[in-house]
């Protein structure tokens, strides 16, 4: 930045500040409580949500998502598109122009060298970068001048917004992290615990898994923000305690992700110190059907692989009947309250991608029974369980250990027994179930069960990679060390063709049409995935905290700079 622009900026801020509503730091202190404590402030080393969100107070991406899922420029001047020339016509490059006069919190200017360095840091093969999938498509980062940077892709990207976009891929300072590349990344404790950023706050003290103390960034680009001079970001405890601290005792101003029973939350809100806010993203609690036979009688090489098709669940009528028997409204009421809504879609949002598929919303026990009768599943021996060709309609239903999930399991077991399906329930500790340890038989990837329930979502607003998870050949199997995304072992060449087509389509209308079609293939056409609940996010803030805009597409506290104290 030149002296001239500095002086101009200073002059402008003196003129403008009396007009502004609040001055920087005029509203004192604000407290945030996350019941999961961040263990680091480097989002590239820890992929956890808690670390990414805490870091979003300091580190910012070039562009990010607003609460409606729309991209908004942060450090970049505007969102590059094909129309404004930011995205090349052949979709292989993306040009960002940085805002003028950006400063790091230590007062040095932010340049495109920092942007290029961020990519180098995360793309280093030995760094173990948790966000490297955001940089996978990058061929080269070309620095044109101090404010212009071009991202060249390996191949055309119909949806190019992943590198430097959103809370997972913020810009870090080259000067601070230059010595921390690759295997040396963990050695830079000071940098990982107090990254210099461009965001509204600066770390003054970081205690891993406990508390972060922050103060307003003196060099933040909006001279009137943030309104708060200091911030405490406390972690630890449980969701109940966090809710209590905001809604009942008023010790904190903002509590993150209150996954609590609806009646517990309602009681807390009656405390009168704060209020609940909720928003929906793409997180869907679903039942996944196993298309392969998980029977322990099979040899290890073919158990739960495509060589052994499932004896019962390959029958579409069975899968459809299982879905029809479920009362999704009741599940929402019991498990999530205002933080959930029934859904039949794998991609429930953003609106442009959400299919109008609602046929599963009404429970139809009689219809399910009729469907099974018709398909030849009858209770021939009178034990209450249907059978056909000597195969009993008996399923093993697994999920992770979690109070709501166990309630759901019990309810679903009841509904399924109403239609003559016997269910054995199983729950596995979340760290093992989601752990991905190829040696364990209890992971969700290995899927040694007939059906399983969990929740998944996708980053950002574009479902392309998410829908591509169901490609034939990407299923976990012994040859892939049980890694893979196609958990159901779903295999349909037509679907794979649609994946390829989506990867080539840039036009938004066509993309949306295709994505909806793919969603319908997986859900209402084949019942491979049986969505149950579109899970929203419920957080709470004190009545005196203003400016909160809950965002499920990006960091929840993405706009902490705009927060203020209601007087």
């Amino acid at each position, binding site marked *: 930045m030149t002296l001239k622009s500095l002086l101009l900026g200073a002059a402008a801020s003196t003129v403008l500040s009396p007009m502004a509503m609040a001055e920087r730091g005029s509203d004192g202190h604000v407290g945030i*409580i996350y019941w999961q*404590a961040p*263990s*680091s402030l480097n989002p590239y*080393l*820890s*992929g*956890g*949500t808690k670390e990414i969100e805490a870091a979003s107070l300091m580190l910012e991406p070039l562009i990010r998502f607003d609460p409606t899922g729309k991209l908004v420029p942060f450090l970049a001047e505007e969102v590059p598109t094909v129309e404004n020339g930011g995205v090349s016509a052949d979709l292989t490059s993306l040009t960002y122009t940085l805002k003028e006069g950006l400063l790091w919190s230590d007062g040095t200017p932010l340049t495109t060298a920092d942007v290029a360095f961020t990519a180098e840091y995360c793309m280093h093969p030995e*760094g*173990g*970068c*948790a*966000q*490297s*999938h955001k940089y996978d498509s990058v061929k080269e980062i070309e620095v044109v001048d101090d404010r212009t940077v071009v991202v060249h892709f390996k191949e055309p990207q119909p949806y190019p917004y992943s590198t430097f976009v959103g809370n997972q891929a913020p810009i870090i300072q080259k000067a601070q992290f230059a010595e921390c590349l690759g*295997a040396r*990344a*963990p050695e830079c*404790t000071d940098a*990982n*615990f107090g990254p210099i950023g461009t965001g509204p706050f600066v770390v003054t*003290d970081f*205690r*891993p*898994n*406990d*508390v972060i*103390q922050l103060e307003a960034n003196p060099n933040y680009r909006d001279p009137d923000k943030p309104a708060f001079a200091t911030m*405490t970001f*406390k*972690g*630890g*405890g*449980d969701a109940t*305690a966090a809710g*209590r*601290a905001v809604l*009942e*005792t008023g*010790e*904190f101003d903002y509590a993150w992700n209150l996954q609590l029973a609806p009646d517990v939350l309602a009681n807390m809100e009656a*405390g009168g110190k704060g209020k609940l806010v909720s928003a929906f993203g793409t997180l869907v609690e679903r039942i996944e059907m196993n298309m392969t036979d998980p029977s322990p009688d099979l040899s290890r090489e073919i158990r739960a692989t495509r060589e052994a098709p499932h004896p019962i669940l390959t029958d579409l009528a069975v899968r459809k009947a299982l879905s029809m028997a479920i009362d999704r409204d009741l599940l929402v009421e019991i498990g999530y309250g205002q933080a959930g809504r029934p859904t039949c879609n794998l991609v429930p949002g953003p609106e442009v991608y959400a299919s109008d598929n609602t046929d599963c919303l009404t429970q139809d026990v009689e219809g399910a029974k009729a469907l099974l009768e018709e398909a030849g599943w009858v209770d021939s021996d009178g034990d209450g369980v249907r059978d056909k060709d000597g195969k009993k309609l008996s399923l093993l239903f697994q999920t992770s250990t979690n109070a709501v999930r166990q309630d759901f399991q019990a309810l679903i077991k009841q509904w399924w027994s109403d239609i003559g399906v016997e269910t054995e329930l199983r729950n596995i500790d*979340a*760290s*093992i179930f*989601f*752990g*991905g*340890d190829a*040696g*364990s038989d*209890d992971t969700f*990837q290995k899927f040694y069960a007939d059906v399983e329930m969990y929740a998944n*979502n*996708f*980053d950002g607003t574009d479902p392309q990679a998410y829908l591509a998870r169901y490609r034939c050949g990407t299923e976990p199997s012994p040859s892939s060390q049980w*890694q*893979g*995304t196609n958990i159901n072992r779903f295999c349909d060449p037509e679907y794979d063709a649609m994946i390829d087509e989506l990867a080539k389509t840039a036009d938004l209308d066509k993309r949306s049409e295709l994505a909806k079609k793919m969603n319908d293939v997986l859900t209402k056409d084949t019942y491979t995935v049986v969505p149950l609940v579109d899970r929203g996010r419920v957080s709470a803030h004190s009545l005196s905290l203003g400016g909160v805009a809950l965002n499920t597409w990006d960091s929840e506290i993405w706009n902490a700079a705009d927060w203020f104290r209601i007087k």
Partner: protein
Amino acid sequence: MLTFTIRRLVLSIPTLLFISLVIFLLLNLAPGDPMANVPITVPDEVKQRMREALGLGESVYVRFYKWMVQFFWIEPQVLIDHYFGTTFSEGKLRVISWQTRSPVMDIVVQRLPQTLWVVGMSYVVGVLIALPIGIISAYRQYSVFDQVGTFISMLGFSVPTFFTGVLLIVIFSVKLGWFPSIYDTTLVVNSWETFLAQLRQMVMPVFVLALYNASQISRFMRASMLDNLNQDYVRTARAKGLSEKVVVLVHVLRNSMIPVVTVIALGVPQVFGGAIITEQVFKVNGIGQLLITSLQANDLPMVQTLTFIFALLIVLFNLIADVLYGVLDPRIRYD
């Protein structure tokens, strides 16, 4: 006595090495994955690269050897450097936590003050309450005092801290607003006000833990006193014409302390271990909370180091208890 102490100290070395091996193997055999908390939107290949960056690709014995070198050789050097300003440990790799990617011992040192303040204070308070209650309860067996004391200690012993803790929060934080429900670990005591604030935030966790500790120790004290009160030497002392005060507080108490000292001494390592549940309830974020979050995150280096430190303290305080027997009872000699 000195040779006994030295012999025991030397013997404890193979014991501790064996313990560290057992802990390491148990932790490695247990199922779990440090990447389990990474969102499932992160691709598996990325998780695999992250695991390799943590050193998980290496074989078990290489990792055990590395941990041994880091813990027994490099960490002491760091300590020496810290106190004497030397540079022995410069550039050497310390025990690194998988969650935070920072040295494990730095976090332990950061967490100790909270734990020692809250859990240590509750232990001291608990012992100070328990001893007199135990003595009086035994001396006046089946009196009203004894009955009330028994009732309260049974209550303290049987009601879990996650219940008493939350009950206190609901009454004193939510309804009355007297004490904070969340412990501020960053509070620096440097004035009268901050001292009061520290006192206020310590009241509830200390009370919960002290009640539990006091119940336990007072029962031991009472039982041990009762055993001794009916002994012949007590009758002799009384027959000699000694005052009741001398009989009870000198003759009986000293003899009764032997089993109680073991209980108290063996409870001290638990102080350093923190109080997992109480720390979680009041958000004290000390060693107990560190251990439980590390377990949840499968942060093996952290869990390994913490459990080993506990093992070390237990071995050490066992020895201290043995030495204290000799001090309390001159007849006990180990040489």
